[in-house]
């Protein structure tokens, strides 16, 4: 009888140990088997996105408040900030001449150049991350392209990337990531306003705002006739700011020219 009780007790203890073991296995499975689980969960796109997104957003914000350029040329000095003139005339009574057409294309070019270094750093960091996870990884020359698209900023990394572990090899040629942004619409509206100024001398911001419910446009004017437009998406709070000088009415008869 006692022998049987002892056996039962041993079985119970073994069963408890097994249960505890299973619980521990579930709780610490990531630490115990990092390589296999990690590789399945790891997404290079997500990694690259989290690496480049803050940099893109920061560059974009700087460009956006300076009329689309990181180092503006042909700008208005407004409260110690440089704002690019998209359309300008130095004369009185005349509509402006377009100075920076295709703002979007120019902004993409600048953005691309400014993030190239960071993009390479992100790829190196990605390779490092793979190595930490027990993979061997190699990448070729990195080329990146930045596109401002409706609803997002598209960033593509073109490079040959090979990831190997034991006998399995994965090869990537290109990663495409999208960063949420409404800058595309802001730029097209801004271009339209500048075009309107060049044609008619001034633009009516109320009608733009009534037509596009998500849009807020502010128009500040300086004493010498420059206008500073700030175009904002009220839902995302993104802004684009630029300057124009067009159809300026002189104080007095305009004999003393600017």
């Amino acid at each position, binding site marked *: 009888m006692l022998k049987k009780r002892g056996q039962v007790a041993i079985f119970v203890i073994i069963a408890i140990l097994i249960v505890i073991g299973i619980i521990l296995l579930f709780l610490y499975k990531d630490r115990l088997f990092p390589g296999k689980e990690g590789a399945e969960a790891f997404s290079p796109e997500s990694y690259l996105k989290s690496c480049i997104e803050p940099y893109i957003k920061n560059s974009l914000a700087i460009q956006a408040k300076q009329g689309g350029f990181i180092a503006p040329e*042909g700008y208005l000095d407004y409260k110690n900030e440089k704002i690019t003139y998209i359309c300008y005339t130095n004369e009185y009574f005349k509509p402006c001449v*377009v100075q920076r057409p295709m703002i979007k*294309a*120019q902004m993409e070019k600048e953005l691309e150049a400014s993030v190239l270094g960071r993009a390479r750093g992100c790829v190196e960091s990605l390779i490092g991350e793979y190595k930490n996870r027990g993979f061997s990884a190699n990448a070729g020359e990195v080329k990146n392209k930045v596109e401002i698209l409706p609803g997002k900023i598209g960033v593509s990394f073109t490079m040959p990337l090979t990831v190997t572990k034991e006998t399995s090899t994965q090869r990537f040629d290109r990663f495409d990531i999208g960063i949420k942004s409404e800058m595309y619409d802001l730029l097209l509206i801004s271009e339209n306003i500048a075009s309107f100024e060049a*044609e008619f001398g001034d633009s009516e911001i109320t009608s733009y*705002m009534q037509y596009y419910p998500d849009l807020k446009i502010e128009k500040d*004017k300086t004493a010498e006739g420059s206008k500073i437009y700030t175009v904002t998406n009220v839902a995302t709070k993104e802004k684009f700011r630029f300057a124009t000088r067009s159809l300026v*009415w002189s*104080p007095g008869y305009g004999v003393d020219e600017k």
Partner: protein
Amino acid sequence: MKDKIILTALVMVAVAVFALSAGFSDAAEQKVCCEKTVNSLLCQEVGESQCAAGSKKSPTACASTDFCRLGTCYDSIEGTCIDNTPKIACNAAGGVWNKTSPPQCSLGCCILGDQAAFVSLVRCKRLSGLSGLQTNYRKDVTDEVQCVNLVRNQDKGACVYESEFVKTCKFTTRAECSGGVNGTSLKGQFFKDKLCSAEELGTNCAPTSKTTCVSGKDEVYFIDSCGNPANIFDASKAPAYDSQKKIRNLGGIKDYWTNAKRKEQSCNPSALSGNAESSTCGNCNYLAGSYCRASNKRTGPENICADLNCKSIGKKHGESWCASADKGISDSNGKKPVGSRYFKNICVNGEVIVEACDDFRQQECIQDAIQTSAGPFSQAACKVNRWRDCIAQDNEPDCLNSDKRDCTWNPGLSAGNSTNGACLPLVSPGLKFWEGEEARAACSLGNAACVVQFEKGLFGGKECKSGCECLKSDWVSDRQNICMALGDCGPGINWIGERGYKQGFSVTEEKKSD
């Protein structure tokens, strides 16, 4: 023989606040059309020294040069065209420059699902590509209204198709369903006015209680499990879930999840508030001041009809009205305080945006209101102050011709060449009286000399014979008023309500005897 004494009173009225030291213009430098200035501005007519080194220049107007002729800049990627662009600016941006508008810029109607855009063909291809749709371009449509009308009455409904061996659905137009769903070659079966969540269609799309805002629409919509917009959000029509998070029998709301309903068939369609801030009804109305936006409340639907009106000041979304920051009082003759300016306020998305009209009162603010069922709706605008040729008018009809100028006629006064009345600006313009010589010249138009003739009596004393009105105090105040109406001249008060430190005018007398 009468002893005549002619007394001439020369009355000089002029502003006495000029900063004489400032702003005399430089020795005249020849102006040239400069392709690029030292400040990197393109195609400007500036002094020769302002031209950047190596930049093209010509001593003519830019419009007469070849290098600064304005043309159309064509963006071959986006398919957009920008007029009034100099070649150098277009080329630097990577565009294609043309003297005249190229054929690629001609417009037609681009149909994008249930939306339409009046754009160029390349732009249409671009937009279609970005929206995942096949290009549907109608060159024969020649105006925007016609283009918008083309898509207005399109059939919409459930397009059932098979993707990866699953019967699924997209709520779209008949054209997209038969032409290829999502820009692919997949064609589906179209069920007009049916929702993808309709049980009878047997697709994998089921009702959910989630909501969304749809591009180009005011209202909050339910979405189904495939991401398609369903009918307008109505809390009483949301599906109920059991303890296992499965939808209970739809029962009374089955019809709402089967057939597409019009705005008028949805909750509170005629609410004057446009269901603003309602957590139970998503039937927003932009014209009433509500629009679908993400909710910032923790409970309730993810999206609600946000209130766009400026409630605290009783203005509606889109209303605009004139404002002024002047403390100095402007009088009924249009004389405005020195430094005063017009402003236009706009109520947008629940906040007031201030737009300044041009400084120096080169623009004035005008406003009017239209009557609507919800009360008056005011609209304001900054309008150019056409004051420049008032003083040159010598008769009332020309002076008051509001098609050409903004002036007021003052009979009995004289100014400029007019002796039978003075034509003066309706709103006095501002002047840069602290620099340059122009303000002095502009104010000097208010100078006047009045000859008063006296006759000396035989036993002393003198009697005024002509020009006697100039001896009255009214004459001086009339001249002051003329000065102030001409601009920032004369004895003015500034916009913060302070009088000038100087008198602002002077009266001198000179005696001449005959």
